[in-house]
C-alpha cells in the first residue's frame, strides 16, 4: 500500500518527460472527448439562439418563477471556481506541499468555471443585446447602472475574480512554460517563448516570482470569499422568505469550497487515468484531498442545519412555510436527494477503504457535485414557488431549453479544460521537483510527514523552509 505522497527517486528529466508527454499528440480518446464537448455546447447554442429570437417564453419561466436553472447553475459554477483558490492559495500559504502536483489543473478549473458562470447571467437576460448597460460606462445619455443592485456587484466581483485568478494561473505557470519553451518546436515554441516572458530561472527571477506568487495568493483568498458572499447577496439582500437569510454568505462559501473539492477529485481521477500521472497524482494525495473535502462537507452540513434551525426557531411564519414546502412541497424529492448527496454521501470519504479506491471516489465525487447543484436549484426555485403571496403560488418545471443550456455549460467547461491540458502543463513540473527534492533531501517518509507539520512549529524545528529550494 502506497504511503508516500510521491516517489522521491524520480529523475527530474522523467518528470519533465511525463508532463510534457501529456501535452503532445493527443490520442483518439481525446478527440472523441472534444467532439462530445462541442456537441454539448452546440445544444446550448441552438437553445440560446431559439430563446434569443422568441423570447424567454420557451424556457418555461413564468409568473412567479422569473428565475430558475440559469441562476442556480450560475451559482453552481461560481462555487466550482473556489477549488483552485483553495488549493493553490490557501494550501500554499499554510505550506501543505502535497498540493503541488494537483494545484495547476485546479487553478485552471477556477478560471474556466468562472468563464462558464459568467455566461449565465447574460443568457438569462430578457434583452441580452442590452447587457452592457450593467457596466458603468460614460454614456451619451448620462445614465448609470443602479449601484445598489446585487447584480451590479456580481458584475464587478466576477470580472475582478476572473482576471485575478487567470493572472494567478498564468504567473504560476511561468517557470513551466520556460521548460516547455526549451522542449517545444514550431508554433508551440513561439507561443511559449512569448508566454514565458524570458524566464531564465536565475535567482532574481525566482525571488520576485516567489514574492508575486505569495502576494497574489494572499490577494486571492479574500477575493474568493467576497465573490461568493456577493453572489449570496443576490438572494440574501432580497426580502423573499428562504432567500433573506443572514447565514447565506458563509453558507455559500462553504458550499463553493465543497463543490470545488469534489470537482477536483473528479478531475484528479480523470487526469491520473488518461495521462498516466500515477506517480504524481498518487493515492495518498487523493486521500488528503478527500479528507479535506470531508471536513468541508461537514462544515457545509452544519451550516445547512443551522439555516433550517434559524428559520425554524425564528418568528417569520412565511419563512417557515417556505422551508416546510421544501421538505414536503412539489420539489421535495429533489430536496431530499440534495440532503442525501450533500450530507450523507460525504461519509464515504471518511472510510479509508473507499478513499483509496479510485472508481468509488469518482462516483462519490460526482454524487457530491450533483448534491451541490441541487442545493443551488433548491435555493432558487422553491422560494419562488411559495412566498408571501398565496395567489401566486405555483409549481414550474424547467423546459428542454433550460436543460439544454445547463447541459451545454458542462460541455463548454470541458472543452476549455481539454484545450488547456493539451496546451499547458496540467501538472506543475517545477513544484513537483521541489517536492521531490524536499522528500529526497530527508530520506524518510516520517521526516517528510514531520515537515508537513512544520508550518505550525517552524522555530523549534529550526529548519529552513523547503519552499525556497532552487530547481
Amino acid at each position, binding site marked *: 500500500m502506497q504511503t508516500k505522497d510521491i516517489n522521491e527517486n524520480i529523475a527530474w528529466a522523467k518528470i519533465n518527460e511525463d508532463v510534457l508527454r501529456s501535452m503532445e499528440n493527443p490520442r483518439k480518446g481525446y478527440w472523441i472527448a472534444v467532439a462530445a464537448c462541442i456537441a454539448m455546447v452546440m445544444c446550448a447554442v441552438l437553445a440560446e439562439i431559439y430563446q434569443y429570437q422568441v423570447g424567454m417564453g420557451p424556457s418555461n419561466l413564468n409568473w412567479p418563477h422569473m428565475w430558475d436553472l440559469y441562476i442556480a447553475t450560475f451559482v453552481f459554477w461560481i462555487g466550482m471556481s473556489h477549488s483552485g483558490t483553495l488549493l493553490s492559495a490557501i494550501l500554499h500559504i499554510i505550506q501543505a506541499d502535497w498540493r503541488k502536483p494537483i494545484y495547476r489543473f485546479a487553478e485552471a478549473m477556477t478560471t474556466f468555471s468562472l468563464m462558464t458562470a459568467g455566461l449565465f447571467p447574460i443568457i438569462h437576460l430578457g434583452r441580452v443585446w442590452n447587457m452592457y448597460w450593467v457596466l458603468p460606462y460614460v*454614456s*451619451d*445619455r*448620462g*445614465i*448609470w447602472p*443602479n449601484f445598489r443592485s446585487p447584480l451590479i456587484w456580481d458584475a464587478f466581483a466576477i470580472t475582478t475574480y476572473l482576471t485575478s485568478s487567470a493572472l494567478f494561473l498564468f504567473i504560476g505557470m511561468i517557470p513551466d512554460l520556460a521548460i516547455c519553451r526549451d522542449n517545444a518546436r514550431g508554433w508551440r515554441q513561439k507561443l511559449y517563448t512569448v508566454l514565458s516572458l524570458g524566464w531564465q530561472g536565475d535567482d532574481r527571477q525566482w525571488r520576485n516570482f516567489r514574492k508575486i506568487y505569495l502576494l497574489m495568493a494572499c490577494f486571492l483568498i479574500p477575493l474568493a470569499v467576497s465573490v461568493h458572499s456577493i453572489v449570496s447577496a443576490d438572494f440574501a439582500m432580497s426580502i423573499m422568505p428562504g432567500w433573506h437569510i443572514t447565514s447565506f454568505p458563509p453558507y455559500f462559501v462553504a458550499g463553493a469550497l465543497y463543490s470545488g473539492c469534489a470537482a477536483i477529485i473528479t478531475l484528479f481521477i480523470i487526469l491520473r487515468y488518461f495521462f498516466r500521472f500515477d506517480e504524481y497524482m498518487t493515492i495518498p494525495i487523493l486521500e488528503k484531498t478527500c479528507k479535506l473535502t470531508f471536513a468541508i462537507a461537514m462544515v457545509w452540513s452544519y451550516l445547512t442545519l443551522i439555516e433550517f434551525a434559524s428559520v425554524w426557531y425564528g418568528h417569520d411564519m412565511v419563512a417557515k412555510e417556505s422551508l416546510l414546502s421544501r421538505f414536503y412541497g412539489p420539489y421535495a424529492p429533489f430536496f431530499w436527494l440534495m440532503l442525501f448527496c450533500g450530507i450523507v454521501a460525504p461519509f464515504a470519504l471518511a472510510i479509508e477503504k473507499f478513499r483509496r479506491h479510485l472508481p468509488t471516489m469518482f462516483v462519490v465525487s460526482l454524487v457530491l457535485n450533483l448534491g451541490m447543484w441541487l442545493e443551488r436549484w433548491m435555493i432558487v426555485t422553491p422560494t419562488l414557488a411559495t412566498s408571501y403571496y398565496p395567489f401566486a403560488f405555483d409549481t414550474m418545471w424547467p423546459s428542454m431549453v433550460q436543460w439544454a443550456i445547463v447541459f451545454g455549460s458542462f460541455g463548454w467547461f470541458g472543452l476549455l479544460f481539454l484545450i488547456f491540458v493539451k496546451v499547458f502543463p496540467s501538472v506543475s513540473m517545477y513544484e513537483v521537483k521541489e517536492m521531490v527534492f524536499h522528500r529526497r533531501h530527508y530520506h524518510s517518509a516520517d521526516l517528510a510527514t514531520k515537515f508537513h507539520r512544520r508550518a505550525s512549529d517552524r522555530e523549534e524545528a529550526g529548519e529552513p523552509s523547503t519552499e525556497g529550494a532552487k530547481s
Partner: protein
Amino acid sequence: MFVSNKFLSKRRSKSVGQGKVSQRLAMFFSVLAGVFIVAAAQAEVPNAKPPVGTHSGEDVPQPIEFPHDIHADVNGINCMYCHTYARRSKVAGIPPTSKCMGCHSVIATDKPRIKKLTEYWEKKEPPQWNKVHDVPDYVHFTHEKHLKRFVFENEGMDVENVSEVCAFCHGDVKKMTVAEKVKPLNMGFCVRCHEQNDGPSDCWKCHK
C-alpha cells in the same frame, strides 16, 4: 436615471452643489460634443442654453419640394402659422391642404410645385409627406411644453422669432427648402439640454 432632482432636493430649485456639478457635466458633455459647435446661431433666445450636437441627415424626398426658405425666410411667415398645433398639442401638425390653397389659389399659381399642389387639392387627397424628424415610439415629446418654456412663458422672448426656438431641434429650417434633419435628436441631445435649462429629469416625463 433612477432618481430625479425633484425626488431628492428638498427645494424645487436646485441647490448650489448640484448647480456646480450640472455645469461641470455640461462642460464635460460639450467637450464630448466638442467637434461640432453650431450653437452660435441661436443667441437671440433669452434664458435658454440651446442644445449642442449635429447630425448630417440624408435628404428625405417629399411629394412636393416645399421651400421653407421662401415661406419662413423671404416672406417671414411664422412657423406656427402653418404648424399650428405646436402650441396646443404634442405634435406640431402639418398644415391642412386647404390652408396651402388659402394662399396659393391666387399666389404663384403658375409655378410647377403649386400646380402639383393644386392637383392634389382637386383630387381631394392631401399629399403624403415623409417624416423627417422622428423619435422612437417610447419617446413622448411634447411641442406644447417646449414652446411654453422657451416662448410663451419666457419673458423677453419675442414670439416673432419663435423659429430660433424651433431651430434648437430642427436646425435653421429658414435656410432649407425641404426640411432635413441636422440635430441628432437622441437621448443624449435631449438630456444635455434638459440639464442646462433645468428641464425635468424624471424618466417618465418622456418614456411611458
